């Protein structure tokens, strides 16, 4: 049976030394969420070059993809998205009251799977970057 309780100001990051696995999951979910919404605005701004025709669109996307930094940031974006997805699935189960007793283990699993997928994606993202 779940229960809620008064926990004061939630975003008191000064208490980070006291954080449990669930709190770290919450912090990482917030952080990856901020990155993803920031990226969404940037993504639409870059894709807006499609309104200026094929040459501007192709040169903009092609030019960005020639930068090694962009390729590395893409791996980071994938890691952020994968963690947010996996932890999001975990949160949906927590909301349904399923697997509450192993919510710390599912957080660690989310981190490990995110790391493995990010590492496995490196060759794909760096193809043609050098």
């Amino acid at each position: 049976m779940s229960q809620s309780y008064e926990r004061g100001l939630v975003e008191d990051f000064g208490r980070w030394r006291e954080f449990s696995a669930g709190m770290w999951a919450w912090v990482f979910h917030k952080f990856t969420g901020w990155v993803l919404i920031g990226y969404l605005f940037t993504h639409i701004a870059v894709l807006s070059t499609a309104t200026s025709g094929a040459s501007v669109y192709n040169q903009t996307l092609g030019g960005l993809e020639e930068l090694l930094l962009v390729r590395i940031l893409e791996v980071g974006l994938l890691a952020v998205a994968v963690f947010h997805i996996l932890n999001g699935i975990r949160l949906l189960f927590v909301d349904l009251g399923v697997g509450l007793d192993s919510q710390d283990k599912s957080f660690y699993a989310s981190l490990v799977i995110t790391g493995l997928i990010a590492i496995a994606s490196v060759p794909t993202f760096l193809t043609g970057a050098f």
Partner: protein
Amino acid sequence: MAEHYSSFDRRGWRWFAQRVTAAFLIVVLAFHFMLLHFVNHAYEITLAGTTARMSQVGYFVTMVLFLVTATFHGVNGVYNALVNQGIDGSQKKAVATVLVAASALLVIQGIRVALAMTGMNVNF
């Protein structure tokens, strides 16, 4: 036993909408990444290829729904994070106004871009 722990007010419609959009976004975000980074590589993307994809009605509708749900989910998440941070009163109203305006602009521009990607002239 672990206590239940969520930042959201469960009495509100935004709590429910955040979960519904999450369930949709889990699938579509994974699909989007897979299609545009692993099936088609980002460095090979051209407007011709983008137009070929966006000219399919199902794909176009999915991408527009992706835009709308991601905007809601992200902006609603930001709003809740700021409410958790302790904003209240006029600060809360100002943040809500700015976020709603930013969301509207993002969705309008996103749909304009999506239409341009089908080959439609959107420069009036």
